[in-house]
């Protein structure tokens, strides 16, 4: 019954550096084929957790099982089957893109043909380029391909869109979704809530070394019962209180020339219909959904970026 076995099982992971506790009592499971997010502010313990799972750090205590193996004792075997993209990774400045791929492929018993990775990750025309001459986005893509060169079942990606422009971020997100379509499991560490919300099937929120929430982004947001807001600009004296009759609306306020309608998720449709029935069609009608940022705020009392 291998389909039911989690690909990663963490039980009571604890890691301290001297007197600083980086990770305390974290437990979770990752299912095969999912994109699992580990999110939280910088310094929360996300990278430490992932490094313990990848066998790069020895945990203080706790039980870890990755692909059925213990990362501490079976690091060599584990490394054959996983791909890791680290946060502060680097390569020698003078190495060429193809040389790096060729070199890393030689470390594995069963690498795939690295040439097949160039095109899908936009590195085909940079094949002979020096690492030092690549842009930030190109370097990130190269590191991701290095993590995929052994066709791993499980990939750990740590902060891979940091420093990328919006276009590069979208392209990277699409590529990560492709990984899931190829049957790979992805553990994604990020402090970007929008990234976690877009990509992840489930998300573990970590703050100050502890696990504060674990569920799908949708469930986490829904569980907040945070109002969703519909906003549009409106001149004139109408207080728009008649919008309170729309099902799901709890509050209607006027703020600086705008109308803010608060209510349950999905209230946008009802408000738009009610406006249309009165012959009103504001062009800037928009809805603001609660997001994982709001979830984080509610759970920890802090904004994720302080």
């Amino acid at each position, binding site marked *: 019954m291998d389909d039911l076995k989690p690909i990663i099982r963490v039980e009571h992971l604890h890691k301290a550096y001297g007197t600083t506790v980086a990770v305390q009592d974290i437990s979770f499971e990752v299912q095969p084929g999912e994109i699992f997010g580990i999110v939280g502010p910088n310094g929360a313990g996300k990278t430490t957790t992932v490094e313990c799972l990848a066998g790069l750090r020895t945990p203080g205590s706790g039980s870890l099982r990755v692909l059925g193996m213990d990362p501490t004792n079976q690091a*060599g075997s584990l*490394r*054959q089957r996983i791909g890791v993209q680290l946060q502060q990774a680097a390569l*020698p400045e003078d190495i060429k893109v193809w*040389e790096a791929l060729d*070199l890393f492929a030689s*470390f594995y018993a069963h690498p795939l043909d690295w040439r097949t990775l160039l095109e899908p990750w936009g590195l085909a025309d940079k094949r002979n380029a020096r690492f030092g001459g690549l842009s930030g986005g190109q370097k990130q893509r190269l*590191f991701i391909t290095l993590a995929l060169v052994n066709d791993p079942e499980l990939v750990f990606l740590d902060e891979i869109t940091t420093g990328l422009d919006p276009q590069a971020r979208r392209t990277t997100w699409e590529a990560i979704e492709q990984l899931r379509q190829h049957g790979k499991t992805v553990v994604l560490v990020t402090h970007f809530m929008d990234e976690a919300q877009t990509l992840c099937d489930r998300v573990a929120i970590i703050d100050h070394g502890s696990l504060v929430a674990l569920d799908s982004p949708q469930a986490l947001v829904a569980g907040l019962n945070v109002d969703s807001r519909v906003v549009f600009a409106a001149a004139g004296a109408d207080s728009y209180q008649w919008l309170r009759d729309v099902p799901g609306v709890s509050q209607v306020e006027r703020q600086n020339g705008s109308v803010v309608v608060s209510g349950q998720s999905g209230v946008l449709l009802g408000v738009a219909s009610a406006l249309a029935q009165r012959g009103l069609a504001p062009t800037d009608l928009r809805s603001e959904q609660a997001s994982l940022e709001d979830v984080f705020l509610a759970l920890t009392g802090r904004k994720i970026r302080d």
Partner: protein
Amino acid sequence: MKSLLKLTFVDLKLYLRNHIASFFTLVFPLLMLVLFGAMYGNQPSALFGGHGSMDVTVPGYIATLVIGTTAFLSLPVDLALQRQLGILRRMRATPLRSGVLLGSKIITNLVISLVGMILLVAAGALIYHIYLPANWLDVLLGILLCCLSLYALGFALASVIRSAGAVRAVSFIIFYPMMFFSGGTLPSQFLPGAVQTVAKAMPMTYSVNLLHDLWFGAGWNGTAVLALLGFLAAGVLISVRFFKWE
């Protein structure tokens, strides 16, 4: 095995692309040879036991400017820099074993030293018709011992000092006095007694003495062999104890 060869090959390519490093070990000794050769020539002299200045200079330069620069200026700085940048850490995340990574660094540096030596000996033979040893096997074994011993010290340096900048600074402080006082560049006959005494504590003095004796057929210098083995052991112990991949 496949990774060892590939890693070594890539390392050598990268070394040649880094012009400053390759200049020091490959070109600089040649320039010095030509410069001092022009000044002193290679006529036999009682000062050097019947040999010419260049005859004596070539094995001296091998010990100091080729092996010494590799061991103290290039190896530790490259290692510390790769560690600081996270390059070593990225490699550790792969199945690559530490032993293979280390082994490739040693082989790469041996190859570089060997090429430097061949260039120097070829230049010396062509330009100054220097004395060439009859017992090449002994000389090569001696060179191997010097390399391993001095490289081990270079590794130890990169093990106990974390930052690449600090390693670079300390490497200069260690290397340059040795270069001048070991007898490999300035013949020890010309150095004051006090300096010669201090030189007895310097590893490069023993590599110079060992190679000199082997080169001119005087056999294996027991003191030098023991000293070099001692330095090799010390270097290895320190490295094993203190080296970190990040």
